[in-house]
C-alpha cells in the first residue's frame, strides 16, 4: 500500500478569510466546531462531500485545501 497521509491548509485559509472561526466554518458546511478542530489537527478525515464544501467556502480548488503527503505516515 502507498504510504502517506492527508494534510490540510484549513487554518491558513481561515486566516486569509478574515480569521473565520472554526464554529462559523462548521456552521457553513454543516458540522460542529469540534469536527473542524479534528479535521484541522489531522485527527479526522472528512467525507469527500464535506471536503468539497470546505473548498467551496474558501472558493478554492479541493487540492488547495487538502494534500496527500507521501513523506508523512499515520
Amino acid at each position, binding site marked *: 500500500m502507498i504510504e502517506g497521509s492527508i494534510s490540510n491548509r484549513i487554518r491558513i485559509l481561515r486566516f486569509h478569510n478574515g480569521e473565520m472561526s472554526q464554529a462559523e466554518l462548521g456552521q457553513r458546511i454543516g458540522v460542529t466546531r*469540534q*469536527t473542524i478542530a479534528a479535521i484541522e489537527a489531522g*485527527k*479526522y478525515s472528512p467525507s469527500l462531500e464535506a471536503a468539497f464544501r470546505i473548498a467551496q467556502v474558501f472558493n478554492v480548488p479541493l487540492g488547495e485545501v487538502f494534500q496527500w503527503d507521501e513523506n508523512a505516515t499515520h
Partner: protein
Amino acid sequence: MPYREKTAWLSLIAMVVAFGPYFTIVASLHREPLPNLRQLGLFAVAAIVQMLILGLGHLYLGRRSPEEARTPPDERDRAIIRRSISSAYYLLIAGMILVGCVMPFNSSGWTIINAALFTIVGAEVVHYGVVVFSYRRQS
C-alpha cells in the same frame, strides 16, 4: 467538551453506578429458585437508578447547552457511533453465544439471566467507552 461526549460520559456513569453495585451484590447472594423476588427487586432498583441518572442528567445537560442538544449528529459523530457499536457488537455476540448455547447445559434461572444482563451491560460500557475515547482522541 462536546455535548455528545458529555452524554456518553453520563450513560457510562449511569451504567457503572446502577449495575456495578447490582452485580457485586448478586455475586454474593445464595442461589435460590425462580422467581427469586429479591433478585428481581434488586434489578428493579438498578434499572430505576439508571433511568433517574439518565433522565436528570439529560435534563441538566440539555438546559446547559440547548442548541447543541438540538443539533443532529454530524458525519464525525455518526462515524464515532458506528465504530463504538461495532466494537460492542463483538462482546455482545460472544456473551450471547455463551448465555444461549453454553450456559443452559450447566446453569439455570437467575445465573443465566444475570449472565445475559452482564453481557448487555458490558457491551454498553464498551459502546460508551469507545465513544468517550474517540472524542478524547479527537478522532
